[in-house]
């Protein structure tokens, strides 16, 4: 067991370093030139071991979807490195990338628009297998039927069209399509956000079972902390193109470090009237600023109740506050003075971050 873990840790499945994706905004009289940039993903680093699930959480416009698409090279990164199974894939050509595509699959949010309405389920699930040469002839049909059965549909659904299914069932088709290619990594971009509560649980439990069965590694994206908790081993919180905190799943919920994580947790309504009456939730003011012109220093300082002068001047580095909690904050929460004093900057820290010691006692509380 220990040995197995040792070999596993040697080579992470996915290692992303200082990944940047800026979308240029162009304008001009006759010919276009760049006038501004949307800083969708700005110096993000993350590491994913085999068999692990990373939850990626953030509100709309934080860059989580762009990050997913960029690290699968569905969008070209502006700069930075992406290593998959130890191999750099950031700079290689689409042709070289093709065999790797099979190993990295994506499940999309909208089960209505991500399936071709004119193709039958059998084709939707079977064609990618055929295309990648995983099966031929009658084998395809047999494998598709097995897959359908595995994701909770039945073999009779083979000849049906997507519109004949409910949202939850369509998401199952999307999962079967991804699974058919025997991928190592599945990036699930808000796979349950469009589904009803009772169906959400079914899909999450299914993904959980499949992970054990096929040894899958997941990146699971969500816009709030409620959904990802069950499935994630670690959770990364994004705000305006940056990862502001990464922590083991349980730890993030009990001892969040970054004020934004605190606010996200506080914003999820507690389905318990008595506890609700007692608590005083932290409600953030204002809206998320534009990623075209993000705030200086810590990008969260405009909405942070604990912000001080340093927050608008110096970008906080990502630091290890112990127990696997890595966060970028000048005034961390749920951190003791000793932990703050011994915290060290991690190599994943953004290159633009300044050098400032965290201070548990903020200027105003």
């Amino acid at each position: 067991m220990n040995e197995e873990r040792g070999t596993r840790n040697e080579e992470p499945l996915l290692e992303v370093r200082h990944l940047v994706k800026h979308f240029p905004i162009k304008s001009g009289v006759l010919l276009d030139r760049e006038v501004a940039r949307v800083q969708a993903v700005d110096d993000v680093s993350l590491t994913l071991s085999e068999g692990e699930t990373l939850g990626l959480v953030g509100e709309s416009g934080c860059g989580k979807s762009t990050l997913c698409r960029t690290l699968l090279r569905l969008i070209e990164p502006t700069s930075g490195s992406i290593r998959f199974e130890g191999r750099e894939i950031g700079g290689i050509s689409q042709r070289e990338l093709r065999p790797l595509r099979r190993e990295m699959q994506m499940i999309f949010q909208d089960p209505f628009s991500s399936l071709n309405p004119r193709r039958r389920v059998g084709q939707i699930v079977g064609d990618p297998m055929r295309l990648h040469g995983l099966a031929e002839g009658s084998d395809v049909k047999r494998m598709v039927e097995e897959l359908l059965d595995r994701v909770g549909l039945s073999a009779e659904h083979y000849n049906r069209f997507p519109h004949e299914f409910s949202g939850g069932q369509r998401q199952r088709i999307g999962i079967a399509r991804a699974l058919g290619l025997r991928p190592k990594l599945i990036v699930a971009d808000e796979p349950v956000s469009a589904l009803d509560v009772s169906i959400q649980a079914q899909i999450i439990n299914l993904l959980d079972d499949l992970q054990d069965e096929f040894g899958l590694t997941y990146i699971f994206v969500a816009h709030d902390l409620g959904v990802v908790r069950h499935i994630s081993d670690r959770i990364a919180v994004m705000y305006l193109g940056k990862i502001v905190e990464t922590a083991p799943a349980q730890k993030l919920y009990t001892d969040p470090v970054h004020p934004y994580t605190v606010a996200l947790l506080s914003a999820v309504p507690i389905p318990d009237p008595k506890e609700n009456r007692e608590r005083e939730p932290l409600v953030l003011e204002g809206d998320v600023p534009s990623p075209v012109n993000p705030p200086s220093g810590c990008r969260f300082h405009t909405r942070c109740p604990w912000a001080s002068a340093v927050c608008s001047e110096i970008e906080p580095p990502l630091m290890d506050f112990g127990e696997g909690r890595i966060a970028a904050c000048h005034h961390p929460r749920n951190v003791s003075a000793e932990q703050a004093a011994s915290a060290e900057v991690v190599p994943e820290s953004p290159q633009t971050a300044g050098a400032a010691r965290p201070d548990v006692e903020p200027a105003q509380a």
Partner: protein
Amino acid sequence: MTLLQVNDLQVHFETEDGLVRAVDGVSFSVEEGKTLGIVGESGCGKSVANLSVLGLTRSPNARISGSALFEGEDLLALGTERLRRIRGNEAAMIFQDPLSSLHPFYDIGTQLIEAVQAHQNVPTSAARDRAIELLELVGIPDPARRADHYPHEMSGGMRQRVMIAMALVNEPKLLIADEPTTALDVTIQAQILQLLERLQDELGMAVIIITHDLGVVAEVADRVAVMYAGRIVEDGTLDEIFYEPQHPYTWGLLGSLSRLDRPRPRRLPQIPGMPPSLLAPPEGCHFRPRCPHAFEKCQEVPPLESRLAEAPDHLDRCWLDPDEKRSKREVEGRIGLEAPD
């Protein structure tokens, strides 16, 4: 005082595939100044029921029956013009997606002024003052300037504030909020819920909040009605629904909530199966095919009535014996829907 009393509301739509029983005998009431939460999953009829109360589903292929007494008048029986005068005036409504719910071609000031002048014979300048006053009330900074902005120039949260301002501009007695926070980010949802509560305190209106999220209900509602497949399956006070739930569907909903303040369960509790088609709902109790506790009697439709001597206003549609329910809903020390072993 009861402000709105809906009795045996039926809304059926004739379609090419057959008759869709979107709302199948729904009764509920709202007290003045109180908040009723109507909870259910998509397609359960919670929106259609409320749209129908305001006459917004009237069409040649809709069959609507029952009654909806609002201050003594039956809204379902009112003529178009009389009902128009109530809509947006005494009973207003806001919707899920504030971007698609605002007209993209008019600035928000114009859209608010239109709402004022639909019910009050006042000059545009006075209507504009009123509009700006409301924009300020809902927490929009620099309202006079913002009134000239178009919906697409605002954030989602700001747009929903505009929708709320537009609904409240004529000081309605009832506000129907149909999934008002579903399209918003969590931190913005918290802002909007806080705003709705503040406005209700200040203006004293009654609110019907339609949502799929029991968490939202727990924050704002006084009373809760749980809907499933066109019917109300349980109706009680907030505490009754959360601590003494009587219907297995309610147990399932409560059980499948993820509680961030509790240790996570080994496995996420789920309700098996899918909601039935409203074209051909099952005989008897609509939840029967998904219910692990169903028995022969469930082939008959259970009436919505009180089955607890100590809580005469706590209504449900389940044939199980109340004592039996208490033991059956306990799953690993919490409420849930689990098949008996």
